[in-house]
């Protein structure tokens, strides 16, 4: 998957695997609704992917201490830096 190679390992929030965690890096982005930041989705917060709705959207995350479901179009706008435990190495093993 050549196009996936990306120097700093960042990925879209929607690309996290279930139970995988990442650190949010671009929440202070003027395209995102303010409500998201009010709910605690700020840069540096840890986000864990819980699951995806049966029909493909929304996506369900634990953001900081809060469980939040996000529409796909919103989740796609947020980038995260995956934390070590679940990085791409593990994906290769599978």
């Amino acid at each position, binding site marked *: 998957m050549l196009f996936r190679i990306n120097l700093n390992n960042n990925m879209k929030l929607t690309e996290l695997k279930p139970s995988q965690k990442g650190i949010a890096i671009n929440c202070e982005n003027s395209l995102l609704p303010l409500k998201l930041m009010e709910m605690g989705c700020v840069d540096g917060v840890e986000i864990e992917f819980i*699951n995806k*709705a049966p029909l493909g959207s929304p996506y369900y995350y634990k953001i900081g*201490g809060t*469980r*939040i479901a996000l*529409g796909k179009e919103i989740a796609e706008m947020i980038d995260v830096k995956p934390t070590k435990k679940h990085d791409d190495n593990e994906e290769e093993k599978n």
Partner: protein
Amino acid sequence: MKKKKIKLALVGNPNTGKTSLFNKLTGLHKKIGNYPGITVNRVAGIFQLDDGTLIELIDLPGTYSLHPNSKDEEVVLKELLLNRENIEGVIVVADINNLKKNMILLTELQDLGMPVMLAINMCDEMKRKGIEIDIGKLEKLLGIPVMLISAKKAKADGEKKGKGKIHALKHRIPEMFTGKGKRFFENYGLTALNLDFIRDKIKTNDLYKNWILYTEQDKLNEAIEKKFPYINELPFDRTAVKKLLQKEIIKRYKDINEILKETYRIDKSKATGFTERIDRILLHKYWGLIIFAVIMFSVFQSIFSLASIPMDWIDGIFTQFSMYLKTSLPDNELTALLTDGILAGIAGVVIFVPQIAILFLFIALLEEMGYMSRIVYLMDKIMQPFGLSGKSVVPLLSGTACAVPAIMGARTIENSKERLITILTTPFMTCSARLPVYTIIIALIIPEEKIFGMINLQGLALFALYFLGFASALISAWVLSKLIKSNYKRYFILEMPEYKLPILKNIYITVIDNLKAFVFGAGKIIVAFSIIIWFLATHGPEKFQQTETDIKKTEKFSHQEMNIEAYKLENSYLGIMGKAIEPVIRPLGYDWKIGIALLTSFAAREVFVSTLSTIYSVGDADNEHLLKEKMRREQNLFTGKPTFTFAVGISLLLFYAFAMQCFSTLATIKNETKTWKWPVIVFFYMTGIAYITAFIAYQSLK
């Protein structure tokens, strides 16, 4: 000097137990109304302090901040910033599990200069979750009274004896007017670029107020023009302002973190991830949908069959009582008004009580336990393209039993536009009152045959009608979502609350509140309507009064009684109206007899069947077989052909599928939207579609 009455608002994030606390404080002493012009409930209650001070408490919609994302959140901004109602102080409810996030709104309110008190709810969970909190220090750092409470465990606290935490909270209310709350915003230096131009017009104390006026100016147009015209003179760059607002949140979080670092500790090893684990099952790709379907099916079954038991009782009791009154009171006009008019009207209201109670029992249970948000999560993808909320699924499905409880069920939808669209489209769903009309007409015009050896044609026709109802509800929702304007862009951000055991008292209060709203709101209109219809059907001009002598002259004795009824109905005011509309309904293939039945259907659609029984002098209104025979033989006076041809049948089915013929539904829409505008629109819109489709069907099939 002590004031006699203080007006306070209760605010907080969604899912903080705000409504539980409200119920605990005010009990059943509350008034539910609407905010002007929008479908957002305004709930207010009253309680008294030991020193006699009366506190009027207004429960504002849940919100994360003063910056609104929808019309209902806008209510919070407008009530607190413009303060039309003279709210003197605010109780902020926060969830102890997520204090940080809850404090954004708190700090905003402190910046507004409002007397504030913080009630940290769910303190019963502290030990289990490993939470420690230093209330004294928190009070000092924030400069406001802070209370730990548990709306859930209030009873165990000995609340009744005046010892509990909520009792203590009440008695610290006066303290919020004496302290000096910390201000945050003035140190952020964010306004420099924007508000500097009008520095001279702003008092230092009002800096944050003006900042909100400036940043939310598109929502506060009217107030700004009238009271703060100088805001309009300022340059406004949306992106730049948003950047500043984002910076503001970062700074608030920084301040909040500073405060909580000294006062709040949570032992992360105690987190169980219980809710997430349940959600992996309840929101599972396949299981999630199956469980959802089972839950919805039980709700549907309950309002359909479980409710029918008490409904039969109510029917029986009212019939017996009416009979008793008829036999024991003198046989005159007044008795008739009392029994057939007023009593029948009240019965028509009470009959809805079981369905509403059962539906709200389920809704409250699902809401309390946290499953309602999951319904939104599961269904959003389907409902969103039609401008509906995931929660609209509940009213729409309930609408197949009866639109009246279903429309009330839309109360659970926070977003006012989505709630309105749900209210307006639910009447399209095939309710159970349409069923008797459908079955008799289908039996008349669709042969009892099977196609492909297995599909029953009549069953297929009935299924098609159900589908038609559902499809037209969705299509109308789509049209309405394009027509009803909203300042807010729709995006999906939803907090998923923790799963919890329900608080029975809250469920009880929800059911009672909604029953009251129906009986004393829509109920009054329904009684008035049924008295009018009763009057029109049982009174008439000269010819009506001579019925008995006329009939006796012409008919053989054995048929007299049945024909008297028919003759009376024909010559009543309603009959005259039925005849008067004949020219209008003739293009649909109907004669005046059907016209009368269409009019009486306003009492309830199933009355169509009994009206035809009366008109065709079937005698026993329940004898459907005889009625079908009569209908089959019935001939149209103009054409000399049978009245109920295939074309007329289809035209009638379509008319009943679409037309708004139920005044109980109209009364409920009026009661929910608090204006006659929407029921009138629904009436003309639905009946218009009914007329056009029935017209096209009849004209092309005849």
